[in-house]
């Protein structure tokens, strides 16, 4: 029996800051005047800034020496710190984006910022938890906030549908995940990752209960990262949710789920690597095939980006399947770069208005280059990056993932991935084509009619950060690669 020590509290300092910030936003909301609600967004940004500084300090101090906290339920390590920094950065950008976007959609509720912070604290718990119970609770805290945010446009049936669908399917997948955790606990007598690893070492290979537990964990995490065949919710939820929420889901929740997925499977289930590898190779190929092929026929940009995010989950899964140092580092690199380019693409969608509505059809991009050359230019950059065309960062991300696969003697998988990356260029470049090679419609009913770009300083700042990230990391990716490589999980 141990009582909490100061060292334990210090270990969760960034999480505590974010949680306290979220609660404070809720308290300050009724105390601020109606026309000063923007201050709550700035306050949230300040909280994130403080958490980022603390996280950065941890990252520097921790390389190579993980420090367990809370009697082994939590760990302070460079791996967790890397993901936390990424997630804090993404949350900050989403808050900036939402500040402008929520006003356009007339859903300007300050609770939004509180939910971003609560969701972020769940993600931070998830990436640093070393006990399945803690990881599960973090995952639920993250998901719960996302369910609420998905339904923020309460006047829009689409948004409510997205929230209800996400909530029901999400709780179902949580149940499956919990079932897997309980079977693991029954078989190994522990819920901590280290305890499970030791328990598995004493079991015969191919133990049916263990395999079933592993399968259930794949379902639970597969749902959260939107891997096929657990992806059904993705297009509807991404399309129905307010776009800034979609961006947050597609980037942050996917990154956090991948972080926990990697940690659980490498640290706890490393002993039965050969069994889950086979299963995940199948999931990974199915994800790349379905994501890329179905994205081709989409006419709504949010649905297209949803299928594209499914496909990207497939590429990132390659790193997990490889399951070595290079694989882990390449997943971290991939999701960090994916965060910039995907957030940027969604940011452009939030700025596009067709009449009083959001311009979320691909047709609305028709002739965008004539209307606003800067918006078209950054969208071109993000589309090139998502397709993986050099010199953008998307190329670096894909390159390292594929190299990790080749290095682990999985050339076949790498070849399949390259083929589908080439196919994906079709639907990304189609957006570029309609922006640059078509004239915007001048009469009602033609594609691109009555579309305008609403640029606010906050949204421009987000676009600038995302575009610079994509460009700089594309040409000069070394610092990020170094950071990812120094923060990989110690493989046992």
């Amino acid at each position, binding site marked *: *029996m*141990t*009582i*909490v020590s100061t060292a*334990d509290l210090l270990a*969760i300092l960034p999480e505590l800051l974010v*949680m306290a910030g*979220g*609660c404070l936003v*809720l308290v300050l909301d009724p105390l601020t005047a109606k026309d000063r609600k923007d201050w709550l967004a700035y306050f949230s940004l300040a909280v994130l800034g403080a958490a980022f500084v603390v996280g950065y300090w941890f990252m520097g101090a921790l390389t190579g020496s993980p420090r367990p906290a*809370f*009697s082994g*339920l*939590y760990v302070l390590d460079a791996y967790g710190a890397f993901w936390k920094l990424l997630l804090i950065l993404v949350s900050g950008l989403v808050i900036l984006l939402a500040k402008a976007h929520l006003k356009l*959609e*007339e*859903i300007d*509720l300050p*609770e939004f910022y*509180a*939910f971003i912070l*609560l969701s972020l*604290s*769940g993600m931070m*718990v998830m990436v640093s938890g070393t*006990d399945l*119970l*803690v990881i599960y*609770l*973090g995952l*639920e*805290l993250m998901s*719960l*906030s996302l*369910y*609420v945010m998905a*339904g*923020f*446009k*309460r*006047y*829009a*049936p*689409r948004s409510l549908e997205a*929230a209800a669908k996400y909530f029901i399917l999400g709780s179902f997948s949580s149940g499956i995940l919990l079932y897997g955790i309980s079977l693991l*606990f*029954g*078989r*190994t*007598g*522990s819920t901590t990752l280290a305890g499970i690893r030791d*328990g598995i070492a*004493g079991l015969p290979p191919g*133990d*049916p*209960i263990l395999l*079933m537990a592993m399968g259930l964990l794949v379902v639970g995490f597969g749902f959260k990262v939107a891997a096929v065949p657990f992806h059904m919710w993705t297009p509807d939820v991404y399309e129905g949710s307010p776009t800034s929420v979609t961006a947050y889901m597609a980037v942050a929740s996917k990154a956090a789920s991948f972080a926990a997925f990697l940690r659980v499977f490498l640290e706890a289930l490393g002993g039965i690597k050969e069994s889950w590898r086979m299963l995940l190779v199948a999931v990974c190929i199915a994800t790349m095939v379905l994501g890329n092929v179905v994205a081709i026929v989409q006419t709504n940009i949010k649905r297209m980006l949803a299928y594209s995010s499914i496909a990207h989950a497939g590429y990132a899964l390659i790193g997990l399947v490889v399951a070595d140092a290079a694989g882990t580092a390449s997943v971290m690199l991939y999701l960090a770069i994916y965060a910039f380019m995907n957030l940027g693409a969604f940011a452009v969608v939030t700025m596009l208005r067709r009449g*009083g*509505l959001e311009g979320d059809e691909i047709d609305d991009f028709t002739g965008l280059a004539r209307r606003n050359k800067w918006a078209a230019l950054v969208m071109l950059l993000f589309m090139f990056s998502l397709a993986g065309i050099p010199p953008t960062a998307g190329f670096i991300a894909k390159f390292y993932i594929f190299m990790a696969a080749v290095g682990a003697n999985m050339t076949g998988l790498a070849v399949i991935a390259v083929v589908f990356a080439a196919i994906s260029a079709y639907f990304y470049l189609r957006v570029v084509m309609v922006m640059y090679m078509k004239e915007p419609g001048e009469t009602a009913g033609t594609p691109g009619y009555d579309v305008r770009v609403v640029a606010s300083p906050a949204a421009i700042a987000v676009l600038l950060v995302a575009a610079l990230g994509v460009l700089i990391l594309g040409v000069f990716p070394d610092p990020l690669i170094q950071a990812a490589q120094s923060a990989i999980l110690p493989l046992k």
Partner: protein
Amino acid sequence: MVPIFFAYFALVSIVAGLLTVSLRNPVHCGIALLALLGHVAGLFVLLHAEFVAVVQIIIYAGAILILYLFVLMLLNLKTEERYFHRRHAWYITGVGALTVELLMVLLASRFSGAKGPATVAAVEEIGNSTAIGILMFSDYLLPFEIVGVFLLGAIVGAIVLAKTPSPADLSGDER
């Protein structure tokens, strides 16, 4: 004696669980859920987790189920309750076959799971609720606090979603 009780509680839980999702009248579903929760509490008693069993009865059967029944009462689902999809027969066959196969695989494996540190004897020594209380506020303090934040999020989320948009919010486009 224990295996007989276990078989009774386990089988009735499974049947009640199936009835909960397959019965057409929502109130009947509620009653089946009550039976399920009661029998799961019985399983906890067999495991010498009396405290959890009592909590299960008080919170799930006592509070949550009543809440469900209130919701059912307010929703008045009468018109939508009676329909039967012929397709369901196929789903049930498929799921049934899968279940039988899983059971066969699982029954073929050894049942003796690993034992954690909290054996029955160790728990009996200091008492059921004492053991849980001490663990919850020492080793498992972090998960306990996360649940606190989670519940705060759930309450605020329910309010945010249930708050009817004011006419000013509705002045925009209807989609």
